[in-house]
């Protein structure tokens, strides 16, 4: 059916009832720790104790997996990134959220509220959880020029032939688009997530060229860390947390936010339109962005918390500084992941933009 039906996706509740005793969660690894991996890292059990809602967690590896898991209707809530949220909203799998029922919502950084990747028609479809930028990381011993531009991994990629790395997802096309915004203004790209066919083709051409110099595409921490540690990758995109961990393992790496700015992600806890346990889901939403828990998650996962009070709760006093949590200037340069759709997100009406399916096929072609 069509994704634009307003009735789809159900309605936000006006008030909460008693907990159903259970909640099924889809989360990124590290977002819903119950101490089973490390007894010290546990914010699920306190939640269960407090609310009586038993938590079942399914860890998803990619945004796409989250979308398909949500479609099963077995889950109540999901920590969706911007490249998944719009799809969930459009398909009616996610319900609007009544932020009044989430007391901690008021402390969320305003810059995260009512964003294109978490709202529609002025209604919030979730509670922002945390954010981060896709940085440029390089090995200081192999890359001596101290790059400050994405040019290093695009037009200059051949210099590090076979040792360039990139994020393994169609959304990475946006990184190329972002670079083209400044490198080739003639293309007229205004929003890296709103590309018409011509712009997409240009991005894909750039990525195909980059492909020749790429050593590998990464999709998880472990791969990225070992690649930089071992020297298989010397330059490429990264997350702040990976950079920190790689440094902790004594690898000579440095991560920068290049002058063109960067893509990034901002995760949102959404509620399923078919949620069987909506009350517990709301309780979870409030719990996970409460200052203390938000701080815990942000530190464990390595991201900027969404609750401004969380900065006071972190174990490492400079966590918020390192991750630029309150640095709105920093995040102004970050274009958060948004699902590309047919209607151009930059407001163009004269042309159709390419959608995520096209991006996916383009990405398959880039990788060859």
């Amino acid at each position, binding site marked *: 059916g069509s994704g634009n039906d307003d009735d789809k996706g159900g309605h936000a509740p006006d008030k909460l009832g008693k907990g159903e005793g259970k909640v*099924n*969660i*889809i989360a990124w*690894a*590290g977002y819903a720790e*119950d*101490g*089973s*991996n*490390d*007894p010290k*890292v546990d914010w699920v059990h306190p939640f269960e104790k407090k609310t009586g809602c038993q938590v*079942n*967690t*399914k*860890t998803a*590896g990619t945004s796409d997996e989250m979308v398909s898991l949500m479609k*099963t*209707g*077995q*889950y109540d809530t999901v920590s969706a990134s911007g490249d998944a949220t719009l799809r969930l909203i459009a398909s009616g799998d996610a319900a609007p959220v009544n932020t009044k029922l989430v007391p901690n919502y008021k402390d969320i950084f305003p810059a995260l509220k009512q964003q294109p990747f978490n709202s529609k028609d002025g209604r919030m479809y979730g509670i922002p959880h945390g954010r981060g930028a896709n940085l440029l990381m390089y090995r200081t011993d192999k890359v001596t020029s101290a790059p400050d531009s994405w040019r290093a991994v695009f037009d200059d990629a051949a210099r590090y032939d076979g040792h360039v790395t990139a994020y393994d997802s169609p959304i990475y096309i946006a990184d190329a688009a972002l670079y083209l915004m400044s490198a080739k203004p003639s293309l007229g790209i205004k929003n890296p997530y709103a590309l018409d066919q011509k712009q997409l083709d240009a991005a894909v051409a750039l990525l195909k060229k980059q492909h020749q110099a790429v050593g590998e595409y990464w999709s*998880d*921490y*472990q791969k990225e*860390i*070992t690649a930089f*540690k*071992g020297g298989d990758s010397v330059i490429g995109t990264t997350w702040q*947390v*990976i950079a920190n*961990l790689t440094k*902790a*393992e*004594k690898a000579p790496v440095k991560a920068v936010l290049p002058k063109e700015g960067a893509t990034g992600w901002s995760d949102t806890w959404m509620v399923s339109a078919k949620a069987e346990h909506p009350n517990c889901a709301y309780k979870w939403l409030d719990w996970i962005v409460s200052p203390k828990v938000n701080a815990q998650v942000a530190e*464990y996962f390595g991201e900027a918390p969404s609750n401004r009070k969380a900065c006071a709760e972190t174990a490492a006093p400079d966590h918020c500084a390192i991750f630029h949590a309150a640095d709105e200037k920093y995040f102004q340069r970050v274009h958060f992941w948004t699902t590309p759709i047919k209607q151009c997100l930059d407001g163009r009406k004269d042309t159709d933009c390419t959608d995520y399916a096209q991006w996916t096929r383009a990405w398959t072609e880039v990788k060859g």
Partner: protein
Amino acid sequence: MRISRTARVALGCVTAAGLAIVYVPLLLVLLNSVNTDRSFGWPPSGLTGRWWRAALHSEGARQALLTSLKAGLAATAIALVLGTLAAYAVHRHRFFGRRTVSFLLVLPIALPGIVSGIALNAAFRTVLDPIGVGFGLFTVVVGHATFCVVIVFNNIGARLRRIAPSLAEASADLGARPWQTFRYVTFPAMRSALFAGGLLAFALSFDEIVVTTFTAGPGTRTLPIWIYENLARPHQAPVVNVVAALLILASVIPVYIAQRLSSDTAGGRL
């Protein structure tokens, strides 16, 4: 055939080299389980026992192990029953389409896990979901049992080919009813094959990840899934190494027992 000394030595060297290659990565896993680094790495930067301590206290690993054991045992049990029945039908009867049965039984293991996985996923969603059966341990067991059947089928089939049919006849001849024949004669003769087949089926289920990914429900986390999730997580990789190391060490026992029990050549057949 007389194999020259040189050839023997050469073959021995190839085998030794082969085994060395087989074991180097496993040794690396062992080594990494005491490596101070948080991620896989070479060379190790120092030795520590903290991962072992962490692993032994990891509730998640324990839970996952338990889930895997449950799934493996259930799948193996189903496979044992179905595989034995099928083997009996194919090796003790003549009927039209006999060879097609073996062909069909091989399919689930021969087709790529991802195909089986998404097929089962699609089927469960369209059939089970509407009747209120959600994804969970049950669906995992169904998926695993499907590709484990052929393992049991092959093992029992190989054994049946070697058990003289006259044994069962002798039993009937001496007045035994069919179930008595099964209990006193056929089952004892098949026991070791059942064990070997069951063990291999269990091993297969125990290490399966792709089909599991697509058939597991929320909160159903088998050991491979746990490993997969935790490998992608910076804090956990060393603990995964410990778990893997433990598995390697523990697996020698069942494999050895299986070898002993089946005086049969290869002990198990795939």
